[in-house]
């Protein structure tokens, strides 16, 4: 699996994602600075990491979504390359229009960092193939703006098309229908607020996030 991690000014989970991808795939991901306009040839996966790109000033992910590199990321996604956005990465993907909806400030207006119980809703994607549909897993969240929202029609469509990948088992941040992660129409772009890269080895207490990367490796080679 040939992967790349996009690095924006203010990204801070890029190393954690790099470690997870290296650890699971045995291959070193390319670290791509946001000013690049082209991506390496033959990528299987583009990962957009968590953090506070551009300080999250203006709106979370808004400025990063307009970075030069994002045009190349969109083109790659159109061609079928898998794109994984975690936390700030999810915010960037919605701001870039690659995923529907928006992530607003948490309902209680406070940052939240803790392990959360998630339900895997869709185990058919490359991202979730190593989980069972309906399986309950534990993955940590750490965000201030994870409150997913979209209009009812969009939400119904996401549900109807099986594009809700992960759902919180109980209210965490005010997200509509407790949505924690969603897929795009083609199923090759996943945005999620929880951090699977923080749950991949014994040091993390559990390894529930590891299977996401293992599934990608299996699907993408």
């Amino acid at each position: 699996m040939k992967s790349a991690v996009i690095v924006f000014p203010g990204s801070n989970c890029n190393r954690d994602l790099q470690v997870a991808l290296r650890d699971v795939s045995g291959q070193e991901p390319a670290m791509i600075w946001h000013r690049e306009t082209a991506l390496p040839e033959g990528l299987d996966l583009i990962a957009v990491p968590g953090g506070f790109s551009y300080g999250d000033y203006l709106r979370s992910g808004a400025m990063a979504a307009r970075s030069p590199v994002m045009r190349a990321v969109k083109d790659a996604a159109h061609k079928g390359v898998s794109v994984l956005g975690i936390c700030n990465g999810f915010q960037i993907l919605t701001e870039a229009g690659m995923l529907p909806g928006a992530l607003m400030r948490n309902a209680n207006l406070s940052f939240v960092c803790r392990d959360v119980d998630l339900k895997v809703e869709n185990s058919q994607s490359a991202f979730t193939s190593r989980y069972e549909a309906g399986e309950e897993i534990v993955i940590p969240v750490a965000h201030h703006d994870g409150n997913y929202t979209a209009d009812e029609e969009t939400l119904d469509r996401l549900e109807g098309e099986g594009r809700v990948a992960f759902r919180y088992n109980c209210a965490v941040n005010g997200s509509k229908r407790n949505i924690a992660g969603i897929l795009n129409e083609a199923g090759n772009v996943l945005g999620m607020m929880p951090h699977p890269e923080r749950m991949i080895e014994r040091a993390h207490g559990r390894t529930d996030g590891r299977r996401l990367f293992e599934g990608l490796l299996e699907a993408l080679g």
Partner: protein
Amino acid sequence: MTQSPITPEVVAEHGLSPEEYERVLHAMERQPNLTELGIFSVMWSEHCSYKSSRIHLKRLPTTGPQVICGPGENAGVVDIGDGQAAIFKMESHNHPSYIEPYQGAATGVGGILRDVFTMGARPIANMNSLRFGRPDHPKMRHLIAGVVHGIGGYGNCVGVPTVGGEVNFHKAYDGNILVNAMTVGIADTDKIFYSAASGVGNPIVYVGSKTGRDGIHGATMASADFGEDSEEKRPTVQVGDPFTEKLLIEACLELMASDAIVAIQDMGAAGLTSSSVEMASKGGVGIELVMDDVPQREEGMTPYEMMLSESQERMLMVLKPGREDFAKAIFEKWELDFAVIGHVTNTGRMVLKWKGDVVADIPLAPLADEAPLYDRPHVPTPKPAPLANVPESTDIGADLLKLMGTPDLASRRWIWEQYDHMVGADTVQRPGGDAAVVRVHGTQKGLAITTDCTPRYCFADPVEGGKQAIAEAWRNLSAVGAKPLAVTNCLNFANPQRPEIMGQIVGCLEGMSEACRALDMPIVSGNVSLYNESKATGGGSAILPTPAIGAIGLLPDWSESATLAFKGEGEGIYLIGGTVSERAGHLGQSLWLRELHGREDGPPPPVNLDREKAAGDLVRQLIADGKVTAVHDVSDGGLLVAVTEMALAAGIGAELGAITDAAAAFGEDQGRYVVTGDDIDRAYTMGVPITRIGTTGGNEVAGISLDSLRSAHEAFFPKLMGADAALA
């Protein structure tokens, strides 16, 4: 040249006494201009000069085979083997946090981070030590919410996990909260950067944010009591930009991987003044700065304002000649300002030029040598009378239930869930344990980190309290299995011009010194915050003496660290370092006495350093040998509270015998741990008493269900902060 006349009023406004101004005249050998006076005033402020505490700080032990660099640099440096060093320090941001809690706390975190990465370390963990006033004080919820949001807002954004801390409440902090922040970083021992400037002609480079008018005279504010007008001092509080700090960390570490830097210093309190003066003084050289070249955020700034601004996220460096373009390219990549603003000279003077004129010309040696140093009068704190008329508990279980929900013992989950304590994916023991454990990235090593102080003990008996702060830190590190290495401190006291306050300072330092020596934990960095007393609340109240301790320890293998949660049912519960049968439980200054009976009297529990050391050594040995399944130190609240915390963390109860009176249940005797396992008492004792006190299992402690205990324990913060937690 600034021509404003230097009147006695102007001198007083700069916080200098008439005697100190005489020293200025002597140092300058002429009358200073306003810019020069401003520079003297900040360099000679309590905050920068330690003029009231310096002679007493000298007594602290600061050396040891593990110490690479002790106090005097930006942070302390300790060897952790394999060519790696831990670099750490704790610092106060008390005064700004009371005036503007969000920005005060945020910039406190930013400042301590810079102290650590200035020396070449990547920050791997933040901690904090907080003191608030009465929870029901009308200002307190605003202050708590603001401080917690500020610490989180900054630390979360820069991507350094905030892995733990401590919080106390007491009315003595109603008008003066304490916000102490600690950062720990890791560097290679051959890549540590110091601040002494050298090399005549070498360029002096300014990087980071532009300079604005914020924070002018912050150091002077932090060196005086709060008057009734403290709110009006809000403009002297700096504003933080964690995004820029994150860029600054990455840019500095990228440049530090090269050999371009001669010396580097962050611009903290007193900004450009203290950074340039300290770099030149430490190097024994002179410095010439062209103020026109300082990146400025606002128009029309004068050299006086530029030199005294405390704008955040700025660094000063001396580069090797010819490396300017190389360095500039790195800072431009990270979209940060980069400006050559002067050069190193051999004059021993600090010369500032502006618009073609010399606007300040100060001899550096006298600026340091003539700095005031006070041996202020001090009276020892009278020893407290023995505890008399000790009440009995009528219902141990009911007392336990109440204690678990009190402000000083309740769960801190509401706080630490607002901090990203996992970013970096190396946090192997999260907040809530005795010490946090963070893996040294890419290795098996773990660094254990704790912050500790029990101000009520320090107030009752500064010497014993000072000892206890160090002993508790040592115990918390030992309880996770880490070998204690070294200490940073943040000495928060009230007005040192009062002999009884000075007596607290001297007493606490005496106790700390003794404990550091006995436990082989030298003090490698620190900070002093005085004048923490306030007329703002109408009482002229002084804070409790609060010498906060930050300590680190090393685990060769993080996976061998112990945690406090019970691991299974039917395991033996043991008390190490004391016996319940002695009935010697110490209730003086205990939380039980205060919370259940409204009394804050008696002597604090004495610390026997020999027994402390023996117990800690035994516990670490038991952990290393895999003989124990859970470990927790006994501190605030005593034995029964410690057992309850272990039970709640696991959801497994405890069946205890022989704890039937308040002294045994809630006495706060020192040097004790609770562990679980099998047949530990027969294994080995190393001369330390080990007593089996019960068995894990069931769903109760002292007849109270874990559900009830958990509800009480978890309710305090959400209930206090609930409705308008987000208002700050």
